[in-house]
């Protein structure tokens, strides 16, 4: 964590990564534990609250109500109302207040109930959180985290089913991470809290109950790095957040049914974007399908596909294909909603058609190894 910015107040030393301190979670920290994405978030928040007195939580219904999605369950009891601060419904006000508090060296973690409501705080995030470090010549940084879930598919209608992480991923000065598993949720949350810049930490409603192995003693993951989460030879599937699990399921399915060996790249970080990792992958596999839980035009998939065009054009055996939401305000009614959202069958279809375009399964005419 090397930054030229002065960290004001008492928090200067607190940004150093240190071992988790003693606490109820310490006992389990030597071995890996199976836990949900939700639990991984909660445990990590608690550990960081214990470790660094400058960390505090700000948001609607996070204290007494214990979180709309119960991520902050039990935290008010342990840390009290000074550090677990319930707010009025005033997203612009309390998010902006967190920016100001971060300028003085606190490390606020803001919970925005869903990413849809982050739009009310867009101005403070984009015009202030993202700008203050640069606009004032690097004199003060904004070490804050904005945690918020996206995700459609729950029949919440057009205003409550958006994935507008793209809006934030577009803005220099912000970092945007999108963990896909409980272990990533923990590793990236640690990194985000200890980072000296504003980080938008994207969660997903449909991942909260997903389970996975989590090593509670593992060091933070690095923001700005993607990961190959499944190695393969025939085609690269690139995804983030919920769509990573769809990609992995599609890979298993196509391995069984088509004998296809798919590589899956989990972006993890939307800004900065680790182009190197997925371009290298596509150079090995010669084909790519990009998945996103959002509208197609100008989307994150568009940026990924364009990067592949620049970095791996001569390696491609087929056009890069994107699977993304239909471009409509998401309807409430179930059949319409289902038709508009990317399903496993859409992913399988796009991969199969792309494989076919490469000549895959046509007598092995395309072989690169």
């Amino acid at each position: 964590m090397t930054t030229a910015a002065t960290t004001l107040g008492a928090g200067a030393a607190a940004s150093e990564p240190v071992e988790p301190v003693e606490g109820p979670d310490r006992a389990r920290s030597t071995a890996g534990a199976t836990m949900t994405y939700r639990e991984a978030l909660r445990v990590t928040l608690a550990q960081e609250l214990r470790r660094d007195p400058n960390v505090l939580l700000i948001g609607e219904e996070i204290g007494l109500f214990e979180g709309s999605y119960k991520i902050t369950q039990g935290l008010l009891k342990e840390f009290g109302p000074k550090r677990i601060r319930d707010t009025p419904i005033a997203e612009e006000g309390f998010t902006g207040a967190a920016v100001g508090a971060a300028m003085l060296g606190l490390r606020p973690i803001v919970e925005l109930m869903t990413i849809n409501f982050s739009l009310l705080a867009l101005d403070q995030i984009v015009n202030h959180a993202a700008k203050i470090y640069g606009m004032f010549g690097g004199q003060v940084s904004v070490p804050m985290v904005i945690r918020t879930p996206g995700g459609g598919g729950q029949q919440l209608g057009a205003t409550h089913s958006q994935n507008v992480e793209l809006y934030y991923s577009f803005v220099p000065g912000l970092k945007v991470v999108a963990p896909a598993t409980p272990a990533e949720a923990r590793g990236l949350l640690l990194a985000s809290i200890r980072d000296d810049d504003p980080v938008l930490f994207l969660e997903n409603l449909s991942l909260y109950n997903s389970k996975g192995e989590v090593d509670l003693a593992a060091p933070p993951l690095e923001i700005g790095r993607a990961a190959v989460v499944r190695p393969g030879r025939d085609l690269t599937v690139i995804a983030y957040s919920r769509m990573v699990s769809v990609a992995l399921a599609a890979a298993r399915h196509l391995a069984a049914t088509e004998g296809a060996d798919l590589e899956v790249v989990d972006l993890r970080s939307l800004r900065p974007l680790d182009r190197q990792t997925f371009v290298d992958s596509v150079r090995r596999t010669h084909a790519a399908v990009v998945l996103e839980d959002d509208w197609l035009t100008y989307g994150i998939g568009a940026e990924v596909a364009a990067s592949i065009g620049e970095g791996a054009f001569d390696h491609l055996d087929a056009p890069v294909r994107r699977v993304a939401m239909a471009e409509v305000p998401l309807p409430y009614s179930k059949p319409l909603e289902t038709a508009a959202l990317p399903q496993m069958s859409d992913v399988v279809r796009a991969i199969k058609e792309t494989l076919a375009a490469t000549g895959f399964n046509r007598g092995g005419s395309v072989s690169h190894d």
Partner: protein
Amino acid sequence: MLLVRRFEERAGRAYTQALIGGYLHLNLGEEAFVVGAAAAMKPTDYLFTNYREHGFAIARGADLGRVMAELYGRADGLSKGWGGSMHMFDLEHRLMGGYGIVGGQLPLATGAALAIQYRGGSEAVVATMGDGATNIGAFHESLNIAALWNLPVVYLVDNNELGMGTSVERSSAQPDLHKRAAAYRMDSARVDGLDPEAVYQATRHALTRARAGRPFLLEVMTVRLKGHSVVDPAAYRTAEESAQALARDPLDRLARQLIVEGGASQDQLDLWERQAHDAVAQAEQFAKASPLPPVDALFDHTYATPVPNESRRLPGDPLFETPPEATCRRPNDLDEGGPAASSPYSLPQPVAA
């Protein structure tokens, strides 16, 4: 009031049976507010409300079956199945929408009042909101604009004492919410929201002022009998608080009043009860019989003016027709040769899985 109550109970039941999706926020305990306020409005007045709106749709005169059909996501629903519980709309009855973003309806209502004033109309606008919504910036911006421009709008605060699990005292520095109008030199009042007659009179008064170019803030003291939405067990309330809330049920109060003061017989009450029951049962039948919207209607409502190149692509569709044959023209020398020299990317590095 009884109809709203029985409708909400039936909707809540359907929700727990997974016949209704999304979130479901009910007007249980707020029936006197909903019915009293709606009765004070002229049919030509406009209503903008929030996601707790079934009662308002009913009280404005929307077809009961179509309200239920919207909850069921059916083609005959008030918003044709596109909106769901939080987003109902009925132009005929000038229900200008329920809105899921807290406070989102307030600038819209203010603008509707501007349109009325602009055209010299005699209608007025009612904007309802919860107590929690008075803390959002849009509330303050709207009241200021309305007062500044003398707009014909009444802001109705449904003070059920809670925004999700947060009490008014914990969310509002000035918990007497009607007093907030003073900052905008706007007239305001507070009224007992368990008394339909009182709500009716107060709303009528407010509307009269609004029509004369004096926007008004009316705070209606209601009670939320159950959780924030159907899935909320309201664990943040003590057993005593929950019991107190239930004891304030406006329907019980009205029934007692009708018998003691109005001389209504138990038979009469039973008859109304049967009528409400039958109407709601019919609405549910209608909703269940209504078809789901056809999937090919998915792109029907993106733009009002047709436009070339509008995306009508489904998630799995390619942007362009896939060529029937492989189109690989990749020179063989790239197979082993690694990246081209002009590539902006450096050589592959090991990646941690």
